[in-house]
């Protein structure tokens, strides 16, 4: 385990924690961008270059901007008055801690059986493209249809009603 992994893991976890704990929603959006960046760098550290750069383009380029737009459109950027956590926050925290305990226990108990260091996979973007239009062409078409439907659906859901002018 290199020191790079520990730095990237700390960056990602810190970004995630800041997202959940910060009070101002714009700061939360910036923190989640840092978490997405840390994940993209972790993908690059795992020799998955295509997924890493796709993560940067899609999450930092599109999803983070979309989140900032939603925050500004719903005027959530003002300082909230009162608690930022819901009334049932204790139950949520207990559930999250229990889920982490179960997942961590499973990983640590099975750590012996997990494969150790393996050779760096020789996979190029050319291979990924060939697989996408070869073996995985049907899922690719379904995802294209899904993204079209999601885009149209998002526009229709968020569109102004003509009968009730704002």
């Amino acid at each position, binding site marked *: *385990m290199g020191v790079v*992994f520990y730095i990237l*893991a700390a960056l*990602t976890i810190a970004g*995630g924690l800041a*997202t*959940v704990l910060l009070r101002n*929603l714009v700061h*939360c959006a910036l923190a*989640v961008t840092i*978490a*997405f960046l840390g*994940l993209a760098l*972790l993908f690059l550290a*795992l020799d*998955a270059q295509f997924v890493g750069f*796709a993560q940067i383009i*899609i*999450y930092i380029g599109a*999803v983070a901007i*979309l*989140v900032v*737009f*939603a925050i500004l*459109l*719903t005027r*959530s950027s003002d300082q909230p008055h009162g608690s*930022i*956590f*819901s009334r*049932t*926050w204790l139950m*949520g*925290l207990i*559930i*999250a*801690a229990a*889920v*982490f305990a179960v*997942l961590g226990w499973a990983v640590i108990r099975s*750590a012996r059986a*997990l*494969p*150790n*260091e*393996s050779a760096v*996979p*020789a*996979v190029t973007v050319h*291979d*990924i493209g060939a697989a996408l239009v070869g073996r*995985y062409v049907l*899922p690719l078409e379904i*995802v294209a249809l*899904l*993204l079209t439907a999601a885009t149209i*659906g*998002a526009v229709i*859901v*968020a569109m102004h009603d003509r009968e009730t002018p704002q």
Partner: protein
Amino acid sequence: MTPLAAYLLVAALLFAIGLAGALTRRNAILVLIGIELMLNAANLNLVAFWRFSPHPEALTGMMFAIFSIAVAAGEAAVGLGLVISIYRHARTTDLDQINRMKG
């Protein structure tokens, strides 16, 4: 600890943080961000298993992660559209105040 176990632990921690955010925050946008963090943690699991699998040239885990990213992007677009629509209707994104199914 093997590298794979370390990656899996980081993914589990990130998943728990996202779950805590989705379950405890009051703002609907933060709940969506928490769900995005959970999806990303799952992607990290998939890519880590692909990297340390005996046959990485089969590309299975990586393809799963790529399609998962695409579906998550669609989910974010529809979810944020719903939040904006709810805000226009109820004038708030506070989930403690949005407690009626009836408009």
